[in-house]
């Protein structure tokens, strides 16, 4: 009986295991190897260059741009999406009826392809768009996508539009799991209105804050579609993300070794950033009795 399970277990897991061997383990090892070479993906010959790829990546202006652009996106996107989704969750929660309907409705932007969104945003906001010509009639001459300050903000807003309804569902499920007794106990202690909100509801939502923040921060290291289509990373590298940098290096300039080195640096930066956020959140949670 148990022997049969043994065989069947491996058999059922085999598609996954074969996949993992070919599309995970093998590329993982290859990546480590590639990062120390100067292979251009085409030439039959290449050299080992040691840590040279890493050194030149660390002193590269475009890598530096990607590094700072990511945090710039984070400063804009994370607060907007957290406050926005929290408010939407409260809104859905306070509706007496049709909670499901509005949950679905607010979630719809998540289905949009970044390419289609970029086409709409470009149609409305590109410099020669009729909308901007109208604005110029009122004396407002704004080059939305050509400004190094506004272009990243627009991309951050596009992403916030896409993710706000999704994250709202995370907060909503947190809100719905707060036991009524806690509110009753808080009412006895005199915590009502804003006081209750700050001292009871928000701390009780800690698990949702934790998940949403980590997801939102992690997302910032994987931005590709929106800047690729809409701004190409410009103007002045103001929307040049890690993914664009890796794509440019590996697939436009064919520096596979160098590109892999950049990807490894990107992963380390991502890991450290998320770790710091985790520690900060855990500190905040511990203050309110969460483990």
């Amino acid at each position: 009986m148990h022997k049969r399970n043994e065989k069947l277990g491996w058999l059922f897991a085999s598609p996954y295991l074969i996949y993992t061997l070919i599309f995970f383990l093998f590329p993982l090892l290859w990546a480590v190897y590639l990062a120390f070479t100067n292979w251009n993906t085409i030439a039959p010959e290449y050299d080992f260059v040691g840590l040279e790829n890493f050194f030149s990546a660390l002193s590269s202006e475009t890598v530096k741009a990607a590094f700072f652009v990511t945090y710039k996106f984070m400063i804009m996107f994370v607060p907007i999406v957290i406050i926005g989704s929290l408010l939407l969750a409260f809104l859905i929660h306070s509706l007496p009826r049709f909670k499901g309907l509005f949950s679905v409705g607010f979630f719809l932007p998540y289905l949009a392809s970044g390419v289609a969104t970029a086409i709409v945003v470009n149609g409305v906001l590109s410099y020669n768009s009729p909308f901007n010509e109208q604005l110029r009639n009122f004396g407002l001459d704004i080059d939305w996508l050509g400004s190094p300050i506004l272009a990243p903000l627009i991309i951050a807003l596009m992403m916030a539009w896409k993710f706000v309804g999704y994250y709202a569902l995370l907060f909503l499920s947190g809100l719905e799991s707060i036991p009524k007794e806690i509110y009753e106990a808080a009412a006895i202690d005199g915590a009502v209105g804003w006081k209750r909100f700050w001292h009871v509801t928000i701390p009780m939502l800690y698990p949702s804050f934790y998940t949403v923040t980590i997801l939102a921060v992690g997302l910032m290291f994987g931005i590709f579609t929106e800047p690729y289509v809409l701004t190409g990373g410009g103007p002045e590298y103001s929307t040049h993300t890690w993914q664009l940098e890796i794509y440019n290096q590996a697939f436009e300039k064919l520096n596979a070794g160098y590109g892999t080195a950049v990807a490894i640096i990107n992963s380390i930066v991502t890991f450290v950033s998320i770790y710091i956020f985790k520690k900060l959140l855990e500190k905040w949670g511990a203050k309110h009795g969460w483990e």
Partner: protein
Amino acid sequence: MGGNKKKIKTFFLYLLAFAVLFLMVFPYLYMVLSSLAPWDEVDKRIIPTELSLRSYEWLFGGGENILPRPWLRAFFNSIFVTLTSTILMMVTAILVGYSITKLRFKGSNFINNVILFQMFYPAVILLIPLFLIIRSLGMYDTYWAMILPKAVSLWAIFMYTNFFRSIPNEMIEAAKIDGAGQIKIITKIVIPMSKSITTIIFLFLFMERWVELLWDMLVVKDENMLTLNVLLAQMFGPYGGYPGPMYAASVLLTLPILILFILFSKNFKKGMDFVLK
């Protein structure tokens, strides 16, 4: 008095909810309306004065000196690639999830640890070597290139593993005593039980696969093999002077996924409650 106040509050809450809903669907509405507008009204008015199919005709038929791009072909490429890849992701996830939770064989602990390691391993490092593997396997410019590397979803495995843990073992044992084989147990008991999370997992995998850009763009160059998302991204520049057809193509890209989602959204809240836990 109190009742009235409450009614007014409820009214404003719904008003606000509808305002937000409008904001959420506005880009979709704008896209659809602009695709149906006469060309001199595209981007000039939100609601066109009359409806016109010219953008769609131009998209599929081409214009003066401009040959049409294979939009329909791209549409079917997208459907084929997304559907195949999604089904493979579901099947592999159900099989692995079932084997490590219900068969509990010697390897299950090991496999579980590998899955956890993979989930935390940054996928971006694999991008370039994956591309090189596909190329050296001779899969460049084929459907395989878009399907096989996306035939396993760690997230789906994780979700099914958690869900299968909540199915009591006694149920499986009882079915076994009745003489049911493992395949029958999976198809007749386990899958029907996981209907609502299967719907959600399918939806999430499908839509994420549908909007994939970077990978599909890397491994396919032949215009007849491109997915709709990639073709649209590539035509963004060249079709800059033809906003109407670009909106029509955006509708072609967006509408199927919206319809699919709305059709399946009946169990959405219930399934999401599990997925988000």
